[in-house]
C-alpha cells in the first residue's frame, strides 16, 4: 500500500485518514458558511470519500490491543455530522445525545464569548485571504492551462506580440525549443504569481 517513500505505519495512516474525514466535514461547513450555491455535488462526493475511508480503515493493520470496531465507529461519528445516514456499528446510547448537547452548548457559549470580545474582529482578513488565494489560483491555471505540469512557482509572461498574449511559465518550459530572453535583474522572480512584462 505505501508508495512515494511514505513509511505507511498504521498511526500515520490513521491520522491521515482522520485528516481526510475532517476535511470532508470542513468542506461542508465552508460551503454552508460561505452560502455557496454552486452545484458541486458535495453530498455525493462526501459520501464517496466516506465509503472509501471506511474501506481503507477495514484494511488498516493495527496493534492487537486496539479494536477495529471502535476504530470504525469513531470515524462514523465524524461522518455522521454531515452524512446522517452513515451506519453506526455500536448502538447509540441515550447518553450520546446528551454528549452532543454538551458539545453544542460549549460551542454556542464560545460563539457568544467571541461576539462579546472587544477586539478587532478582522472579517476583512478572511475576505482578503480568500481574494489572494483566488488570484494565485488563477495565475496557477494560466501558468499551466493543461493542469498537468505542477510547479511550486507559477509565473506569467506577457508577450508583446501582434496578438498580445499571456503565457504561462510552465507552458513555455514545456515547449523546450522556445527561447525567451531572461529579464536582466538581481532579484529572481520567485514570488508566486509575479508578472513580468517582456518587451
Amino acid at each position, binding site marked *: 500500500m505505501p508508495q512515494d517513500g511514505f513509511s505507511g505505519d498504521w498511526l500515520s495512516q490513521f491520522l491521515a485518514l482522520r485528516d481526510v474525514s475532517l476535511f470532508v466535514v470542513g468542506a461542508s461547513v465552508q460551503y454552508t458558511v460561505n452560502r455557496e450555491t454552486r452545484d458541486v455535488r458535495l453530498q455525493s462526493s462526501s459520501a464517496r470519500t466516506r465509503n472509501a475511508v471506511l474501506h481503507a480503515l477495514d484494511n488498516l493493520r493495527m496493534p492487537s490491543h486496539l479494536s477495529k470496531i471502535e476504530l470504525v465507529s469513531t470515524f462514523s461519528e465524524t461522518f455522521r455530522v454531515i452524512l446522517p445516514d452513515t451506519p453506526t456499528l455500536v448502538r447509540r446510547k441515550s447518553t450520546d445525545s446528551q454528549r452532543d448537547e454538551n458539545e453544542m452548548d460549549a460551542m454556542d457559549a464560545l460563539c457568544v464569548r*467571541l461576539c462579546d470580545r472587544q*477586539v478587532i474582529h478582522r472579517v476583512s482578513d*478572511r475576505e482578503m485571504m480568500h481574494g489572494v*488565494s483566488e488570484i494565485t489560483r488563477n495565475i496557477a491555471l494560466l501558468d499551466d492551462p493543461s493542469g498537468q505540469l505542477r510547479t511550486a512557482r507559477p509565473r506569467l509572461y506577457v508577450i508583446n506580440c501582434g496578438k498580445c498574449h499571456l503565457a504561462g511559465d510552465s507552458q513555455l518550459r514545456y515547449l523546450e525549443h522556445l527561447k525567451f530572453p531572461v529579464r536582466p535583474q538581481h532579484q529572481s522572480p520567485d514570488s508566486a504569481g509575479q508578472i513580468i512584462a517582456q518587451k
Partner: protein
Amino acid sequence: MQRFLDPALVADNVQSEPLTMAAPASSSLFMSLGNVWRLLSLRTDVDDIITELLGHFSLEKIYAESDKETYQHLVVTLLAQLNSIFLIQRWTLPSENLQVGWYLGFLASWEVTLRSVEFVLQIVSEGRESLWDAQSLRDKYLAEFLLSALRLLTLHPKAPANQRAKDRRERFARIHRSLERIYDSYPGPKSFLLLVCKEITDALRTEPNALQLPPRLRYELPNLASELVNIHQPLLAMTY
C-alpha cells in the same frame, strides 16, 4: 443537497437559535460548528482566545470545584471549546507548497498549543476526585482535544526557533508522562481514541517529527483560506 446544507437555513446572526427544529442531532452539531467557524476562521488572535479560555476556566474553577457536577461540566465545556478551535486550526495549516509566512498569523503558536495540552492534562490529572466518574469527559472530550492539538503540534510549520529536536522530544515526553499518570489514576478501560492518544505521544517522544502527512497530502491539501470545497479530487488517493 440535503436540507441541512441549504444555505438559507444558516442563521444570519450567530447568536440566534441555531436550527433546533426537527433537525437530527448531527446537523445541529453541524450548525454549531458552522457558527464557530464563522467567528473563528482566519482570525489573527487565536493565541489570545486560547489563553483567555484557559484564564476564564482557572477563575471559574476556584468555586466550581466544590460541586462535582458543576466542575465536570466546566471541564467538558473547556475541552469542547478548545477542540473546536484546534479543529479549525487544522483546516488552517498551509500545505507545503504555500508561502508559510502568510498563514502564520492565523495559526496558534506551537508553544501556546503545547502548554494548553499540558494545562489540560494537569487539570484532568489533579481533578480525579471530582472527574473520575465522568467517563465521556476523558474518553471523548479529552481524547478528541488531544488528537486535534497534537496534530497541530506535529504539523505546525514553525516550531520555536531556538528549539532543537531534543528539546521537542523532551516536551512530548513530559506530555506522555502526564497522560500515563491519567491512565494509571483513572479506573476502568479507556476508549479507543484515548488509547490512540497515548500511541501518539509515545511515538512523538521518540521521534518528534514522526507522524507527518504522506507526500501528496503534504503538498496538495487545501486550506481554509482557499477552498476546502474542492474535494472532487480524490483526497483519499493522496493518503497512500
